[in-house]
Structures are given as structure tokens and as C-alpha cells.
């Protein structure tokens, strides 16, 4: 049962990877990287059940958070071209 779910998630990862490689704009690629991260989380969750040891879910939890923060950091870099930029300040000037 879990192997079917696993293959489904792998196919989705492959599709996201295609979009990341093709993607004409930067934002397409960021979107697919973000989706790839979500699929990684699902993959690890299912993997824990497949190998009968679902203790590895902590790893999936960490991944969700890292994926979110990573996406925001990348977007901040794309928008302001500087990770230390203060958005409020940018709006004022």
C-alpha cells in the first residue's frame, strides 16, 4: 500500500523537477522548488511507515519549517537583492 503512495509522490517530484528545469521565469522555479520540498516531507512521512518505524517524523517536521523559511529567504533575495534588507525601509524611500 505504501509503495503505491511512494511511487505517486516520486512521480509528482519528477514533474516538479521538470518544471524547475524548464521554468521560464525565476518564480516558476521557486514555486516548483517549494512544491518539491513539500513532496519531500510527504515522502519522508510515508517512508517511515513503509519501513515500519514512523519515528522519523521529526525529520519531516523540520523539513516543513526549513522549506518555508528557505522559500521566504529566497523570495526576499529575489525582491530586494539583499538578505539584510528591511522591507519597511524600502517602501518608505
Amino acid at each position, binding site marked *: 500500500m505504501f509503495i503505491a503512495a511512494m511511487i505517486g509522490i516520486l512521480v509528482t517530484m519528477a514533474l516538479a523537477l521538470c518544471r*524547475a528545469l524548464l521554468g521560464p521565469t525565476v518564480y516558476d522555479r521557486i514555486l516548483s522548488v517549494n512544491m*518539491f520540498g513539500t513532496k519531500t516531507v510527504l515522502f519522508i512521512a510515508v*517512508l517511515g511507515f513503509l519501513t515500519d518505524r514512523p519515528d522519523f517524523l521529526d525529520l519531516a517536521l523540520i523539513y516543513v519549517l526549513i522549506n518555508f523559511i528557505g522559500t521566504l529567504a529566497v523570495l526576499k533575495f529575489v525582491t530586494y537583492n539583499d*538578505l539584510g534588507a528591511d522591507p519597511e525601509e524600502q517602501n518608505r524611500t
Partner: protein
Amino acid sequence: MTEILDIALLSFMIVLAIAVSRMQNLFMAAMMTGIFSFLSAIVFTLLDAVDVAFTEAAVGAGVSTVLLLGTLSLTTREEKIVKKNNALALLVVLITGSALIYGTLDMPNYGDPNAPVHQHVADRYIEKSGEEMGIPNIVTSVLASYRGYDTLGEVTVIFTAGIGVILLLGHIWRKEDEQ
């Protein structure tokens, strides 16, 4: 059954590695390395090395992507195209790679109970660390106590590297402030 997963993940990684090396846009390359470390963390999980996977997730996908982006904001986003004959470099890479693969031939099989790693102190750690340390995670007690001096050395190295980075980058920031 997990062989299928291994093969699929490793082929994803090969595709990504080729894409990263062919890509002119450095920003995209940084994003692709982020995906790459996600994939390698999954492979570590498949190999039962959950602690390594934790580190890979935090350092590979999190910190190093941010560091690469920080570096990019100090330089340009496009790679400078160098037209040069790289035959020598390819040769070196091939020789190193084949030497490494030759080295793996001597290694014991994955999960082999007779491997030297499983014959040494591992049994004692597994049996005693619970009552000696009172920490459920054996790897933590090995790193922080049994091999404490080793870890202290590693921390010193990382601390020194951090100071070096701060000295290098802090110089640039100070200049910007003065201007």
C-alpha cells in the same frame, strides 16, 4: 523494494547535478543545490542515517542556500563564460572518481554484522548509554560524552571558521556604513 526508490532518487540527483553544472544563472544553480540536498537527505534517511539527514536538512538545504544567496548579493548573478579546453580537469576528475570507486570495493557490505564498525565499541554504547547518560538518543550521548573531546575539536574548528567569515564580511559592511 527500496531499490526502486534508491534508483529513482539517485537518477533525480544525477539530472540535477548535470543541470547545476550546465546552468549559466548562478541564482538558479543555488536553488538547484537546495533541491539536491533535499534529495540527498532522503537518501540518508533511506540508509537509516537519520542524524546525518537532520544535519543535511538544516545545513545543506537551509543554511548553505542562504549563504550562497548572501554571496550572490555581493557578486553577480550570471556566470562568466570561459572558453577553455578542460580535458585535463576531466582527466583528473575521472582518475579521482575511479580511485574512490576502487576504494569502495574493500568496504564491507551495507548492514554487514561482521563489519569492523559493529565489532568495536558500538555494542557497549548501545547497551550502556541509556543508564549511563539518561538520554534516549544514543548518537547524542556518543557525540557529547563518549567522544566529547572529538566534538570539542570540531566545535573549535567551526568557531574559527565563523570568526574568519565574520572578519571577512564584516569588513565590507563597515565600509558601506562609513560611506
